[in-house]
């Protein structure tokens, strides 16, 4: 350690302070290598960078909130390990022959964690809530497509859509059902319940220390059965360097890590790999370079293609992700059925880029920059504060400079980004990410009707065939036909090059070896999918004073 010298100078000053507070925490070395069988109890400590805001997921919208709420609430159905629909609150569902009505049959004997029964009334209440114009939720539009909802009895809930709506089941798999008896007289936008929820899933709220931690405990009345681990504690640790120190000091059990930690830190630290396992799985989003398709010169498809050829995606994956990611050629998760495997990313080809730009009328000027009608080809890449995106932008900047394009980079924090650039459309090129959803519908992002201020097609992409395919895809319930529609959509999108797909990074997690039952290799639904089934063997637990 090079900073040893420096630390010693502080040694003497600090010593007096430490002596007062020094205690010995050393425990005998645990045996991580052993085989253990499932045991109840224990406590899992997790870190998050921000505090959850509101545990009613339809209102909240931040990732910390949805992560915690997901442990407390259930939906009618869920995705199983293989990403197929599986029962949760509903034991089964039927789709009518005209494919417009879905009938959910709700399991009998379900209860909320306060002991009250959970019935179709609660489902109905939740639907009314999410479609109520006074509810401040961004997700309402999906459920407003339901023309009629009824509850023939306590265990049946039917919805009828105006038109066939293919993503319907997906939307019901993501809507947390809320208890009517606690919320019917409340203002859903501002209720005590949002930070003191009562749910039906594996866990219930135990204690919430504002700004510090959210503690959950196993819900004995869980409709999914009991989780193995008794206490789930999520600590708020805003700084990821502090999180990593806590992980290495054994104070937290899991955190997500970055490629450098995965590739460079762990392989060199036997003391860490002895007690911490690393997991790698396909991530849930992709990063792209998006052009302002309405603005010159990006309104010319040849310019967009040229830029696509001029960017070396493999180099970015290697440099920014240390190889821990994959290139993309459609907005779908590689390996899933929606991804069109026949499509290949634009290969890195400098000459092709230059000849395309020459075709448009650009030529090199005396300073070595590309110029057309006296105007140099220059633009600004706008990105938000995200280390990986910053690094990506720097690499792209260098590559484009090589062919004579003058690129500047501007990094802006999120609120300004949205308000000053995205909502106003005043940008050249953005470097951002989209998450990869399980349903292939991409209407919100690519349909030409979705360009209003604050809507998702802020790149101003318009293509009649894409519009038609997106409309068709939403109404097609036959999975094979749907697959064909979205494969065609991906083909057109790739050819039009409104964005340059840069990479889909892997999700990387470091989990302490005391946590057992993690599936390897990770199933399509990801390693956290069976976290209720994880367990911590008694002999590997921390000194825990009480476990209730």
């Amino acid at each position, binding site marked *: *350690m*090079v*900073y040893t010298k420096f630390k010693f100078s502080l040694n003497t000053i600090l010593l007096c302070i430490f002596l007062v507070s020094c205690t010995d925490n050393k425990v005998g070395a645990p045996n991580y290598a052993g085989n253990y069988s499932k045991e109840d109890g224990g406590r899992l400590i997790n870190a998050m960078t921000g505090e959850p805001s509101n545990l009613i997921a339809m209102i909240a919208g931040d990732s910390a909130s949805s992560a915690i709420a997901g442990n407390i609430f259930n939906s009618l159905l869920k995705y199983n390990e293989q990403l197929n629909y599986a029962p949760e609150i509903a034991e089964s569902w039927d789709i009518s022959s005209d494919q417009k009505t879905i009938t959910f049959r709700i399991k009998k004997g379900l209860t909320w964690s306060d002991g009250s029964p959970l019935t179709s009334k609660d489902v109905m209440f939740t639907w009314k809530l999410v479609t109520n114009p006074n509810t401040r939720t961004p997700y309402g539009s999906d459920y407003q497509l339901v023309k009629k909802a009824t509850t023939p009895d306590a265990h049946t809930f039917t919805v009828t859509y105006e038109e066939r709506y293919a993503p319907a089941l997906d939307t019901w798999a993501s809507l947390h059902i809320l208890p009517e008896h606690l919320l019917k007289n409340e203002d859903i936008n501002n209720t005590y319940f949002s930070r003191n929820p009562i749910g039906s899933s594996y866990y219930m709220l135990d204690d919430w220390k504002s700004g510090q931690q959210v503690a959950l405990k196993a819900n004995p009345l869980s409709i999914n059965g009991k989780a193995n681990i008794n206490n789930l504690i999520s600590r708020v640790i805003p700084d*990821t*360097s502090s999180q*990593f*120190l806590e992980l*290495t000091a054994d104070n937290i059990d899991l955190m997500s890590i*970055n490629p*450098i*930690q995965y590739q*460079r*830190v762990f392989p*060199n*630290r036997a003391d860490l790999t002895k007690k911490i396992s690393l997991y790698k799985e396909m991530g849930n989003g992709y990063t792209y370079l998006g052009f302002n398709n309405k603005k010159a010169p990006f309104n010319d498809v040849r310019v967009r293609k040229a830029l696509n050829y001029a960017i070396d995606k493999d*180099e970015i994956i*290697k*440099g*920014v992700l*240390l190889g821990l990611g994959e290139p993309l050629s459609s907005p779908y998760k590689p390996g899933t059925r929606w991804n069109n495997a026949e499509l290949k990313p634009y290969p890195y080809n400098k000459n092709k880029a230059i000849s395309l730009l020459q075709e448009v009328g650009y030529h090199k000027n005396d300073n070595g920059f590309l110029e057309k009608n006296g105007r140099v080809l220059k633009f600004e890449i706008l990105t938000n*504060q995200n*280390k990986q995106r*910053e*690094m990506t*932008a*720097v*690499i792209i*900047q*260098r590559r484009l400079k090589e062919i004579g394009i003058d690129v500047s*980079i*501007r*990094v*802006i*924090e999120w*609120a*300004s980004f949205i308000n*000053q650039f995205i909502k106003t459309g005043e940008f050249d090129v953005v470097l951002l990410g989209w998450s990869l959803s399980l349903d292939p519908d991409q209407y919100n992002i690519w349909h030409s009707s979705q360009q209003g201020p604050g809507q998702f097609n802020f790149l101003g992409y318009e293509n009649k065939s894409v519009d038609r395919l997106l409309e068709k895809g939403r109404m097609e319930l036959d999975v094979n036909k749907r697959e064909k529609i979205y494969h065609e959509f991906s083909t057109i999108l790739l050819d039009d090059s409104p964005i340059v797909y840069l990479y889909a990074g892997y999700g990387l997690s470091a989990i302490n070896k005391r946590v057992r039952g993690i599936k390897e290799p990770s199933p399509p639904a990801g390693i956290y999918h069976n976290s209720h089934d994880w367990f911590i063997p008694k002999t590997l637990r921390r000194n825990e004073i009480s476990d209730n």
Partner: protein
Amino acid sequence: MKKFISNTLAMAGLIIITSVLVAAITAPILSPYDPNFIDIESILMAPSYSHIMGTDGLGRDVFSRMLYGAQISLLVGFVAVGISTGIGILLGSIAGFYRGWIDSLIMRIVDLMLSIPSFFLILAVIAFLTPSIWNIMIVIGLTSWMGITRLVRAEFLSLRNREFVLASETMGSSDAKIILLHLLPNSMTPIIVSSVLGIASAVLVESGLSFLGLGVQAPTASWGNILTDGKEYIQFAWWLSLFPGLAILLTVLGYNLLGEGLRDILDPKNKQ
């Protein structure tokens, strides 16, 4: 001058600041690489002969980036303090020379500015105006002029009734002439000392803003953002945080030692 040389700490400060200045000016000559040259084949390499301070997460040469970062740190320090000293001298002179209601008004504004946590003000303004190196310098300058205003005013008040000032006044010199020829030159000591100390604070504020992601933006190298990049790997790529950390430490220390040394030497009270 003799006094200065004998003051070891001030000398040390001067040497540090001079070397940083030299490093910043000669950066284009001294740096072995382009500070923004990316080499993904040599990411996070420990210091060696080819990269004496190692490489960062994009394979860029840390030594070259440190040299160019010195330019940014100096720029931020000097411009920010230039702004605050300018405002401070202007308002302080007016308050100290004219006294009366204008003095009360200016002093109330000073009290007002001092009662608002200044880092909060800087944060809010920079976030709202979007961070850029110019915004950072201007905002630091606009939130740190109060000390100099007070100093200049106090000096003026004590000089105001000295014979040479009164003499000049009776001879019909204009206010501006009295201020510029007599009052200001005689108040330079505290102004210089406090400016030097102000530069030290500005350098620290920049590194703090970088930590929060509101500092000088990529790909421009500043010590603050090199250090911030390095903090993630403090256990592994120690060179990424050690060099910028030490550079900030030494530079700020240098300005402080120099400033305090100047105070000791130039202060007439210490001439007994």
